[in-house]
């Protein structure tokens, strides 16, 4: 059924010329939108003066300064003090000493990044588990006021985060969840689960009921049929949903900046406040942004077959 439709258009294939024009336009669009991304990537390898040069520099001598400033904290010292120090221990130390600075420790970027990993993947897993079970129930069972309940679930996503931040803050403080990873996981799950239910219900609706009924006749219980028949069939939808949930949880800023201060703070509130001497340290900001993009990019690229196929599959409705 799926293969039939993914080849569907080839029956009335566009002419080679039309294909080539379409390809050229899409590639041109992709390249244009890549420019800001390429600029972030390049700026991460520039020295401070190169990053703010006029005209903007495309060719430059690569420097580790951005990445060093991202991962370390430095303090200013007198040249005399630096002169009497033992020889520098690494690239970052050497770079710092050239500007009369000394590396005094590691920055908060790494702990924030680890928080991002735990909170984003934790809440994605939880959202998908809750989403797939609820979606299955909505898809297969007679539930009173089903449509209203579904709209209620969607409507929870309409609330501006700022609007509920104060009550959530007060509530979390009372139950001891403020500035904890668990609190943020639950919060992001609550935001994402509505999307997960809606997306996954679309996928599960597409799985023919006959499959489960055959399993039930074969002696499976409802739960066994769910785990052994429905879940494998819904893999594509689950992966596509997980990608969307992860993108949100990984990148969320408003709740993170308002509700966390240290322990559980993720990277998005941290990156924009990387300040150097005399303003924002753009190479360090760019380095932080680049490193932060890597996990989600890897995740999406590895699973992109599912994303594209998943979207198609969910769309195969009458």
């Amino acid at each position: 059924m799926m293969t039939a439709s993914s080849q569907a258009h080839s029956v009335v294939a566009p002419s080679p010329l039309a294909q080539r024009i379409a390809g050229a336009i899409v590639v041109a669009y992709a390249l244009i939108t890549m420019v800001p991304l390429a600029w972030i990537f390049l700026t991460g390898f520039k020295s401070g003066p190169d990053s703010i040069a006029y005209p903007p520099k495309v060719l430059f001598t690569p420097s580790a300064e951005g990445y060093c400033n991202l991962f370390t904290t430095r303090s200013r010292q007198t040249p005399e003090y630096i002169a009497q120090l033992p020889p520098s221990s690494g690239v970052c130390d050497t770079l710092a000493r050239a500007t009369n600075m000394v590396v005094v420790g590691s920055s908060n970027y790494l702990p924030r990044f680890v928080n991002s990993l735990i909170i984003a993947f934790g809440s994605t897993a939880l959202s998908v588990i809750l989403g797939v079970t609820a979606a299955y129930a909505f898809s297969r069972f007679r539930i009173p006021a089903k449509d209203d309940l579904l709209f209620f679930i969607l409507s929870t996503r309409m609330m501006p985060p700022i609007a509920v931040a104060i009550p959530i803050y007060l509530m979390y403080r009372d139950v001891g969840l403020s500035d904890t990873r668990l609190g943020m996981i639950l919060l992001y799950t609550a935001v994402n689960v509505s999307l997960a239910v809606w997306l996954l219900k679309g996928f599960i609706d597409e799985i023919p009921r006959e499959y489960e009924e055959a399993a039930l006749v074969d002696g499976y219980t409802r739960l066994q049929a769910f785990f052994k028949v429905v879940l494998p069939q819904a893999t594509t939808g689950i992966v596509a949903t997980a990608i969307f949930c992860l993108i949100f949880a990984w990148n969320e800023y408003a709740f993170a900046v308002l509700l966390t201060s240290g322990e559980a703070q993720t990277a998005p509130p941290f990156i924009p406040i990387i300040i150097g001497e005399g303003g924002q340290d753009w190479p360090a900001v760019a380095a932080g942004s680049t490193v932060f993009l890597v996990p989600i990019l890897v995740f999406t690229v590895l699973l992109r077959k599912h994303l594209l196929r998943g979207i198609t599959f969910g769309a195969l409705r009458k």
Partner: protein
Amino acid sequence: MMNAPDPHVLLDKAARATPEPLARRVRGLSDRAIAWLFIAPTIVLLLAINIFPLIWTIWLSFTNYRANRPNAVVANVGIDNYVSVLTDPDVWAAMQATAHFLFWTILLQTALGFALAYLIDRRFRGYGFWTTVILIPMMLSPAVVGNFWAFLYQPQIGLFNYVVSFFTGIPPSSFEMIGSVRLAPWAIVIVDTWMWTPYVMLICLAGLRSIPAYIYEAAEVDRASRWRQFWSITLPMALPFIMLAVLFRGIENFKMFDMVNLLTSGGPGSTTEVASITLKREAFEKWRTGYSSAFAVVLFVTVFGLANIYVKALNRVKNR
């Protein structure tokens, strides 16, 4: 059957000897129990973390509570907060800024997103790779994006001004995207469109792929032109998906906070002060918790009402 776990074998035998509805009850949980078991955790979570704070916000909106003075006496002020919200010119200015932002981002993203999806669906060589490349902007954090575009928009050293000046000859320092009252509203529209067109494209692509091939085949047999096929098959059949994308982007951009906050923080003046930024100012800078709660409720009711009407229209299109 061969794979069924051992302890169940006996029960299964008993089950198969009994009539169908009874059999299910003998073996494990009933459908009703499973339905509740599967839905309850989601509902409980939403009630605890979404609905409870919402009710709290509604309660706060009728008080003069200030979150920075937790020990002050809280008085019930009736609908005073709502009256001040609805008569506040700043609120109406914020609504106008939001409307401008919503209208242009949705228009541009839908047009570009659908066009891209249509072109990608021509399945030229390597379309899978380029589709993935196009998706990258939407994987970034809006906060990081807003922050970095502030750098790209810098009049002297920014890449954006340099590129514009390179192609048009206008000196790069003669215009400020985020510093000028005239250009700033467009600065946030450009960034949001850059970031979220891929999302609309993805949903539109799903819509285009959902159109069964036999419809096009029939149209070919009838010698309908490609132009005609587009207007009478492609567009109408992809419309529910386009509308869904508009709904999702509309809801998200109505709440827009992170990207704009880091790009312009509402400035210059209040030209890009979309609703959520006004909300943040009232709630976390002026600490007028009661007032900001009333504003939040007004916003929520607005988006809830609009979405409700829209979903009804969407369902009508879908069931056509």
